[in-house]
């Protein structure tokens, strides 16, 4: 084996002070190699290009080792100065008796890890190379996240986050520390970030760090990656739905650039098919594009600068025409967002690092249906300041500032949901004439957060206390929240750790609900308590088991209210009231097998119950999206001749439904109203979906072509999502979910 070392000049711009690259005897990168000190205090893993970096490591004389299947164990000693920066090239020799297939260096390897958390109790981490090959995800990284415990299945795979029994508005998605309005394109489309731009995705189902706020459910934190400085590389991906490209490379020896873009065209294909068939077809399809561009520059004095531009647009297109001239089914919906983010970082000392990250963005939403239209434009300005300190060997501290200001201009032509007078009972809002509405809503939040990771006596216990103090300002209202949080981990043995945590989390109601005319600006903050207890067990080198029992309770949730506010002069509708509460509890289990001998897999199972009630006087009822059982099994294997096959099985409790036991004819509205049984007391049949993926890679030296077939719902299982009824609730029929959905694609990669 050969080891090369460079002193002084860092080969990368980000934090680690000890890093390098792991390659095999042919010079190809070794992916997922664990590099650790011999006492296992410090560890890290190599990435798709073989590079690795320790986030924090002590100075002095260190013994490091790499013990990977198919390779000889590598042990070596280094001396790291207190202000030193060390880059290593580690070459591994193959085992004399090879056991499995050759390890490929094409960057398509799945690794699912739960690293030692920093402030987060449960964190599932997926590296970029993971996510390509998960069947049923169409190579989309953020889709692969939905195969982890704690995320409920969304109907029709629409891109909403349902975490531990909370609603879609309760969780948040961050990109490089800043929240984005949506993570997925419309109607089950891919995520808004290209796979090649993603370095890691952290999924935090609860008990998350005080760095994150304005959410009471879960967090998905995506970190993007910088471009390579070695040489230009690129990739092109074309499938049935969209096409995209990615290119990265050096601008100079201190600057790199990475650019990616994608555009859909499925609407064009199906529009042509509908026209050719001659049959009237009414289908709603998304049209989307997204782009990302990142520039990284290494400044002098251990400083670095990053500029990230990214954005996405979705537009709903109606394909075909409904028959006749009946009800207008015209739909025009568009949502777009753009962000420009900068980050300046500096290693003040070996134990202190400062990051300052401003962001500016614009969100545009428009919806038109018949005579009704809604347009909203939001300008967003944010600033994050993160200071990381390590004053002691056993103590890490992180503190910072998180500010976000949003100005939303709303222009609508809608029938106001609540008229200015008492309407005839049961009159539909749609009967009212549309009215013009213009509104400007400003919402500003500013938070200070602090957290620590402390190992008393350098023993097996790790404590992570933290707190977040946040001010919310909207209209003439001010709300203040102090959210203490604490997580703890106890290493019983080298392979078994216990973990537990508790904390408070706050968020403001949506802007619409705070509007003085459409909502209720007096609404308080919505808040939640999170509790969790569990363990992490590494049974073998590649096998691990992680289990977490959780309880979350949510308070002051705002719900529509028809309760009139009575005054001496009359009555006015309240519109929204903060009387609802919710709770969810359950068990999450993840059994995973990391990549080795050419295959990987995991089983994720969640057993849970989610409930809600409109007020304290009412009994808890099941949350409409409650899913008692949710099982996902993922498996992928490399075969000879560069073939890869994978499968994904999903079994989920059927959607809740309310039985209809009678009907009453409303003579004034000339329609029927259903008499229902106990709400959400029955379920659709068990949801089951089997996805398969086959990929073949052809190697042409610096250029590779990968052909793949990814089929979702291979069995074409009907999987009823809802029940539809006739006009007088006597006959019903199930509304099926997404049918078999194949996609054929090709991905070309240069270098």
């Amino acid at each position, binding site marked *: 084996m050969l080891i090369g070392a460079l002193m002084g000049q860092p080969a990368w711009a980000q934090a680690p002070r000890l890093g390098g690259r792991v390659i095999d005897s042919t010079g190809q990168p070794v992916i997922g190699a664990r590099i650790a000190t011999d006492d296992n205090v410090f560890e890290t893993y190599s990435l798709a290009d073989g590079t690795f970096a320790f986030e924090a490591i002590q100075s002095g004389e260190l013994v490091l080792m790499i013990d990977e299947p198919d390779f000889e164990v590598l042990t070596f000693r280094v001396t790291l100065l207190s202000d030193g920066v060390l880059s290593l090239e580690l070459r591994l020799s193959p085992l004399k008796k090879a056991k499995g297939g050759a390890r490929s260096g094409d960057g398509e390897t799945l690794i699912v890890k739960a690293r030692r958390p920093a402030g987060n109790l449960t964190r599932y981490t997926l590296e970029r190379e993971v996510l390509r090959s998960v069947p049923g995800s169409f190579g989309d990284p953020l889709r692969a996240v939905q195969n982890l415990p704690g995320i409920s299945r969304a109907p029709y795979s629409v891109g909403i986050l349902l975490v531990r029994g909370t609603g879609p508005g309760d969780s948040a998605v961050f990109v490089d520390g800043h929240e984005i309005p949506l993570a997925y394109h419309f109607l089950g489309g891919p995520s808004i970030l290209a796979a090649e731009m993603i370095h890691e995705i952290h999924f935090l189902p609860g008990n998350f760090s005080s760095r994150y706020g304005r959410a009471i459910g879960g967090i998905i934190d995506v970190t993007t990656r910088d471009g390579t400085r070695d040489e230009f590389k690129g990739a092109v991906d074309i499938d049935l739905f969209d096409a995209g490209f990615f290119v990265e490379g050096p601008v100079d020896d201190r600057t790199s650039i990475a650019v990616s873009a994608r555009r859909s065209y499925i609407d064009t294909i199906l529009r042509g098919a509908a026209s050719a068939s001659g049959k009237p077809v009414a289908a709603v399809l998304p049209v989307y594009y997204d782009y990302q561009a990142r520039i990284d520059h290494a400044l002098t004095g251990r400083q670095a600068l990053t500029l990230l531009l990214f954005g996405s647009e979705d537009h709903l297109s109606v394909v075909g025409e409904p028959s006749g001239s*009946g009800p207008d089914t015209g739909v025009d919906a568009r949502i777009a967002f753009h962000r420009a983010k900068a980050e300046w970082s500096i290693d003040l000392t070996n134990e202190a690092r400062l990051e300052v990250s401003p962001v500016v963005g614009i969100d545009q939403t428009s919806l038109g249906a018949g005579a009704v239209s809604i347009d909203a434009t939001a300008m967003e300005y944010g600033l994050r300041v993160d200071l990381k300190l390590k004053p002691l060997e056993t103590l890490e501290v992180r503190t910072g500032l998180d500010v976000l200001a949003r100005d939303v201009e709303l222009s609508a032509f809608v029938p106001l949901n609540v008229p*200015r*007078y008492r309407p*005839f009972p049961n009159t539909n809002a749609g009967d009212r*004439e549309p009215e013009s509405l213009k509104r400007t809503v400003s919402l500003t939040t500013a938070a200070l957060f602090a957290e620590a990771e402390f190992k008393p006596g350098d023993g097996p216990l790790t404590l992570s206390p933290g707190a977040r103090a946040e001010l919310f300002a909207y209209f003439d209202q001010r709300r203040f929240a102090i959210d203490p949080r604490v997580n703890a981990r106890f290493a019983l043995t080298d392979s078994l750790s216990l973990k537990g945590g508790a904390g408070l989390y706050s968020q403001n109601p949506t802007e619409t609900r705070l509007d003085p005319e459409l909502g209720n600006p007096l609404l308080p903050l919505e808040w939640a308590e999170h509790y969790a207890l569990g363990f992490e067990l590494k049974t073998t080198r590649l096998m691990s088991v992680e289990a977490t029992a959780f309880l979350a309770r949510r308070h002051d949730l705002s719900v529509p209210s028809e309760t009139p506010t009575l005054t001496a*002069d009359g009555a006015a509708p309240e519109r929204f009231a903060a009387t609802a509460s919710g709770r969810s509890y359950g068990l999450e289990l993840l059994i995973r097998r990391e990549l080795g001998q050419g295959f990987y897999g995991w089983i994720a199972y969640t057993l849970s119950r989610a409930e809600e009630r409109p007020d304290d006087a009412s009994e808890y009822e099941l949350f409409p999206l409650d899913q008692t059982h949710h099982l996902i099994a993922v498996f992928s294997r490399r075969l000879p001749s560069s073939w890869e096959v994978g499968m994904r099985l999903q079994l989920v409790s059927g959607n809740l439904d309310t039985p209809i036991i009678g009907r009453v004819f409303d003579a004034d509205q*000339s329609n029927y109203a259903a008499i229902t049984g106990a709400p959400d007391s029955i379920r659709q049949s068990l949801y089951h979906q089997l996805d398969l993926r086959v990929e073949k890679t052809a190697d042409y030296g610096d250029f590779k072509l990968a052909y793949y077939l990814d089929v979702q719902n291979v069995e074409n299982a009907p999987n009823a999502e809802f029940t539809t009824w006739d*006009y007088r609730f006597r006959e019903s029929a199930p*509304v099926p979910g997404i049918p078999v959905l194949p996609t054929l694609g090709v991905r070309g990669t240069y270098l």
Partner: protein
Amino acid sequence: MRRLLAAVGVVGALTACGSDFEDETLVVDLRILAAKAEPPEVFVELGPSRAGLPFFTIASDPQSVRVSVLVVDPRVGPLDDARVSFEVWACLAEGPIGCGSGGAASRGDDEGGGSTRASTTFPVAKGEGSLESLVFDFEPTAEQLNVFLTEDPYGGFGGLYVQVDFTLKMASGETVRGAKIISYQTALITRREGEPPPPERRTNQNPRLSSLRVDEAIVTPFDPFPLGGSTRPLRVEPVFEASLEVETYPVITFPDREGRAPGWQQLEERLSFNFFATAGRFDEDDVDTRRPTGSARELSVNYEPPRAPTAQDAIWVVTHDDRGGTTWVKWSLSQGAGGRASSGQ
């Protein structure tokens, strides 16, 4: 959350295959097509004012209201037993449809309501009638209405709405159930300082369907329905005579958030139409049961008459206003000479 689910469901339904449910405009069995209250709105005599809620009390028993129910069953022939027994209850008309007995029905969007309601229910009537001519009288006492006022979440602000919930049972044992709202109002309308005085308030009247235009022929409620001896589609359009039918009325407005006292607002009544037939076919895509008066949209539907109508075949056109007013006109169909008409207005 439920609105989100409904939106997802709409998307799913749009992309899903259609279901073969029965045509709503085709009458094939026992159905309630309409119910009319005469009058649909009653002025009440105000009692002495008092501190607190409700905002008014009723001093004396109000005018009686006659309720007519259009219940039909094309399976019942002239020699069959067409008797219908009925039982009627009354309760407050805020929230679910129907009174407590037999269960109350929630509206489609149950985010704002709820399927349960604790409201006092009074028996109204029991009796017997027959298909297409079932009537009963609703004669609440002031005491009963004052009970409803205390239960009204608005305290009577904007009026008191009472619903009569009727269950109809055929000799065969088959039952149907319906509900109709009757409005109790005061003649007084307040106004804010500086506002002009509101116009005199009159009680709502049931609308009148002036006529139909069938292809180019004007057909009054007393004319035969012009089948023309063929089965080609007919263009059917309600003819609305603005000078006779349009009502405008003032309503009291809520106090606003700046603390200004209630005022008033003038509204124009909106009419809508429903079409039913025992034979033939109305084009479903044309039938939009809620069309505001004065809308620029063409108020017409295509009707494909049956090849061989029988003496029992008929079409009905039901007219609603947006304050509980209702009426209907029936045209019987027969081959050759055209149909006969009868009116429910």
